[in-house]
């Protein structure tokens, strides 16, 4: 090999290595520091003309053609929707700055605010907001530093669902999935949500069954309370058939008979009933809740701080709590509407009373998803934060 042949690419390699090093330095100095802190963003002051489209991130069943088609016809804003399975996915998607808005649960909203991914909402630009249920306004999961950051979508409790042919007698308690004496009967057929929020479910169970632990808020857990919840879930793991991260996975699991009992959302419950699968859930007479209560969610539409189509987004936020639309939305999914006036528009005239939409006292037994923080809220700072929850969940699943 002649020497002159050895040289040609060497210089090129050196230049290239230098460029890579340069990129690293660039990443080190610049990069993501322009997103720090929340509350620097300005809310929209005036509503302008629609931009022609709006890109949303949502839970399954929240953005359906039944109400997007009329919206598109009325406003000219074409709706692009990406369905996410967990709040983590939603936060990740919002971080890219590619979406205009998200239907955020409490375990995402605080994080979105802290990271600066969302902007405050000027509620004067959302006329339908005036008639939203008052116990959904100014809540810690949608209002930060006194400023509203979103428009409520609706709320509901996570359900305990079971196959009525296989699970007898009808359970009225989460013991059927958490108490080994009962759950071992359904070993390998229990279905549990694949997300760290399941730790809160265990905490709700322990709040009822082991009051000596002193659990008040299932999202603010001291190390002792946290470890107890984690241990409960580790014991449960032996009996779990499937951890579901997508609704369809759970639906096919119940339909195939692989799962017979577990936590679910109304979306799956109604989909299975429609297909004739013999599923049942805690009845309306019990408030759809097992005796311990349940975790749940109160979801908020938030607008991205980098929204490219803010006017369409505001129009969407107003549309989703339009009385007729919110009624449709609530009945489709099976949750309590956010809009007071929606209760007159539901197909089922008793819908709102069945779902306790107008009953704030009921919701005290439903623990909306929240972001676990080190700040326990009572002056203590030693509660487990979200990273601890995620790490624990990884360990629980093994």
């Amino acid at each position: 090999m002649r020497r002159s042949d050895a040289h040609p690419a060497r210089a090129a390699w050196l230049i290239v290595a230098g460029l890579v090093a340069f990129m690293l330095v660039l990443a080190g100095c610049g990069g993501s520091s322009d997103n720090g802190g929340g509350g620097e963003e300005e809310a929209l002051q005036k509503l302008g003309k629609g931009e022609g489209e709006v890109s949303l991130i949502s839970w399954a069943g929240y953005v359906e053609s039944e109400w997007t088609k009329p919206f598109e016809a009325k406003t000219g804003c074409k709706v692009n929707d990406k369905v996410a399975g967990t709040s983590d996915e939603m936060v990740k998607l919002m971080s890219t700055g590619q979406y205009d808005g998200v239907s955020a649960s409490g375990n995402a909203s605080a994080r979105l605010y802290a990271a600066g991914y969302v902007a405050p909402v000027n509620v004067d630009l959302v006329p339908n907001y005036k008639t939203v249920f008052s116990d959904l306004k100014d809540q810690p999961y949608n209002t930060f530093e006194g400023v509203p950051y979103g428009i409520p979508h609706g709320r509901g409790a996570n359900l305990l669902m079971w196959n009525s042919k296989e699970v007898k007698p009808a359970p009225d308690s989460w013991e059927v999935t958490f108490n080994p004496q009962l759950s071992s009967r359904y070993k390998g057929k229990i279905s549990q949500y694949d997300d760290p929020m399941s730790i809160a479910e265990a905490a709700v169970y322990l709040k009822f069954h082991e009051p000596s632990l002193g659990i008040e808020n299932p999202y603010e857990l001291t190390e002792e309370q946290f470890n107890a919840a984690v241990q409960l879930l580790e014991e449960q793991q032996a009996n779990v058939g499937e951890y579901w991260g997508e609704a369809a996975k759970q639906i096919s699991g119940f339909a195939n008979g692989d799962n017979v009992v577990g936590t679910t959302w109304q979306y799956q419950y109604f989909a299975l009933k429609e297909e004739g699968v013999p599923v049942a859930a805690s009845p309306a007479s019990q408030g759809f809740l097992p005796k311990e209560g349940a975790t749940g969610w109160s979801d908020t539409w938030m607008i991205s701080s980098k929204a490219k189509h803010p006017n369409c987004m505001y129009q969407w936020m107003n549309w989703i709590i339009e009385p007729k639309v919110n009624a449709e939305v609530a009945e489709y999914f099976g949750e309590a509407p956010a809009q007071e006036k929606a209760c007159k528009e539901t197909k089922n005239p008793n819908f709102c009373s069945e779902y306790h939409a107008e009953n704030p006292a009921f919701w005290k037994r439903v623990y909306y998803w929240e972001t676990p923080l080190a700040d326990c809220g009572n002056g203590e700072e030693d509660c487990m934060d979200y990273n601890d929850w995620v790490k624990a969940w990884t360990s629980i699943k093994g």
Partner: protein
Amino acid sequence: MASEAALERRSAGHRLADLFHGRRRLQVGALLAGPLGWLVIGYIGSLAVLLITAFWSVDPLSGLVVKNLTFENIETLWSESVYREIVWRTVRTALLVTLTDAAIAFPIAFYMAKVASRRGKAVLVIGILLPLWSSYLVKVYAWRTLLSADGVLHWALNPIGLDTPGYGITAVWLVMSYLWLPYMILPIYAGLERIPDSLISASEDLGASPFTTFRRVILPLAFPAVVAGSIFTFSLTLGDYITPRLVSNDQFIGNVIFNNIANNQPLAAALALVPIVVMIAYLLVARRLGAFEHV
């Protein structure tokens, strides 16, 4: 005269070509500028920027990366046993899938290369390639239904006293062996095709039994091709997270990365270092075994 006029009228392209003529440095540089720029600056650079976050930490509430140098992520992965178990489970499955695929692929590839008629060969090649076009997700979901407690496998195996393995690590092994099988068959087929029939005839003429010929002539010559195929079965298993999520509760490396990428990117990046290191080592070994000639 005419040729001189022709010389003066040389196009810019012609003159550029003259510039390159004989200058190997320039030729190589021009050829490599595009691909290397793309791969090294674009791809490796992007990787480096991601992986460097493994040495930073994160604000627990916002999930934003905090740029102070720390080894806590590496420490977490090292000290907490669940991560070691997950890595070992992933690597173990990748090895099993590779061995399984090699075992299933070899007879098929051998038949295609040495036994099948010309038309049979064509049919088989198309038959092996066709499944690659059916969507990965659809295939995995189809397997979900096959494996379910009341599914096809149960219905077929129950009469003979066996049953479906259901969901779990066995299911992951089965599905992945299924998914990557074509990636193993084709390199082995190519490798076997390259073995001249004259070598085999010579071995037989020298008195070797078919089995000995296979063992001492064919197998060693085909081995690098098998290693080439194994690169794909191993790496694809190592990095996948969708299949484990859909047919099991088991966490693979990809699942943990996926679960952490939003709220704790440094930890995810640290974990991502593991399959990268493993694959680089694997590729170095494969290269030594001559697989790169057969990939």
